[in-house]
């Protein structure tokens, strides 16, 4: 077990909120076709409220703080907030489209020692990326920002959500990331909108394309390990918890709503009404999330994939039951397993 895994395990066991994503705004200068947020402003927290929340999060033991949105840099106080967060010695990651990052912003981020800047790039082609973001010129602005951030020796990572419009561009984005000297992650999952609208799921790639994605070392690393057959379902698996959401991680919306995760819109309380520690400790919703073990999941507990499935309880919740299945994860687990079968059955002479 790596040191980081040990820390995560300890936080989980102690129910310490080690990781929090704090969205500063719903507003965005891009309007991505697959975005799960609705961008209507509904009363964002003030600077003073956010600083108070950061103090509370620090006292609660939060170490990893992801600042996101919407586009967080649309807030004129974003740097003030990040500076305050760093003064409280959070490990800060900024999730941004980087369109608003110029030389001055890049230098300020370096001076703040931001741990990582995560930037969404959907394609190496302007016409595809800009069609997804619906912001003309956005690819070149984001790439210019990445170069500026790299010139400041900052750690940058590109994230690519694979969907129908960019289904063929993942490898080229990976090459682009390598050329830029930045990290790369691919995510083949389209999630429903937080308001429950599932229409955007139609943008998702096909099962065959998902299999291809999982068979691509540039996307998943060691394919054999990633696509390993499901582990035996034993007592340890059944006594396990589905994921860290609500145990050692949570999400805070731009108006202070606390959820177990950004993909788990189960309201646990609001920080304008209740202190974070009180919500974290006593929220009935969080207690329910924490009480669930794999053996409590009617369908998943009898599934052969239970030992290695990446089941997301939030996506299951959005399908109607946090103890139910997450169809997207069922599909991913099947795609991984069938990938192995496919490879094992391949004629060696054709290799």
């Amino acid at each position, binding site marked *: 077990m790596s*040191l*980081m895994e*040990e*820390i995560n395990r*300890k*936080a989980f066991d*102690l129910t*310490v909120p*080690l990781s929090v994503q704090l969205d500063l705004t719903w507003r965005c200068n891009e309007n991505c076709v697959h975005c799960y947020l609705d961008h209507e402003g509904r009363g964002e927290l003030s600077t003073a409220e956010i600083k108070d929340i950061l103090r509370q999060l*620090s006292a609660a*033991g*939060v*170490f990893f703080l992801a600042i996101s949105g919407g586009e967080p840099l649309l807030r004129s106080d974003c740097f003030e907030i990040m500076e305050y967060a760093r003064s409280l*010695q*959070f*490990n*800060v990651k900024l999730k941004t489209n980087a369109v608003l990052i110029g030389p001055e912003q890049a230098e300020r981020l370096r001076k703040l*020692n*931001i*741990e990582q800047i995560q930037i969404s790039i959907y394609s190496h082609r302007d016409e595809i990326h800009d069609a997804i973001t619906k912001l003309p010129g956005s690819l070149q602005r984001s790439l210019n920002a990445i170069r500026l951030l790299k010139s400041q020796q900052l*750690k940058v990572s590109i994230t690519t959500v694979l969907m129908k419009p960019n289904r063929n561009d993942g490898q080229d984005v990976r090459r682009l990331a390598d050329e830029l000297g930045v990290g790369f992650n691919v995510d083949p999952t389209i999630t429903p909108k937080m308001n429950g609208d599932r229409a955007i799921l139609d943008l998702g790639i096909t099962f065959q394309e998902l299999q291809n994605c999982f068979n691509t070392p540039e996307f998943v690393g060691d394919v054999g390990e990633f696509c390993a057959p499901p582990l035996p379902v034993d007592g340890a698996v059944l006594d396990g918890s589905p994921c860290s959401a609500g145990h050692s991680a949570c999400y805070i919306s731009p108006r202070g709503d606390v959820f177990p995760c950004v993909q788990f819109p189960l309201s646990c309380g609001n920080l304008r009404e209740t202190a974070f520690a009180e919500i974290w400790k006593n929220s009935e919703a969080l207690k329910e999330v924490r009480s669930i073990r794999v053996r409590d999941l009617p369908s998943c507990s009898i599934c052969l994939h239970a030992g290695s499935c990446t089941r997301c309880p939030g996506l299951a919740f959005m399908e109607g039951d946090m103890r139910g299945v997450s169809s997207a994860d069922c599909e991913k687990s099947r795609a991984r397993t069938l990938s192995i079968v496919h490879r094992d059955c391949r004629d060696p002479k054709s290799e």
Partner: protein
Amino acid sequence: MADMYIRRNSWIATRSLGDEVIIMSAKDSTFFTLNSTSAAIWNAADGVTPLAQLVESSVCAAFEVDLPLALADAEQLVTDLAVHGILTVSDHPIEAQQD
């Protein structure tokens, strides 16, 4: 032997987790955990109190350890942490603005 002074650097990220302290250097992303003894020294590292005095008050008193042994371990610890930029070591008191 000259006094040794230690001060936590401001570019780190750190938090207590149970009886340990977790630290990440923002300069090279090196990740550390300190056990309760090391954490006691870390938490007392104010830049102006000599290390020997920190060890005596924070470690020996709390953990019933002899000073010479504890101090030798502490000197090794702070040297390791200084290599990764987690803290600053000096033979004179360290002011806050020297970060």
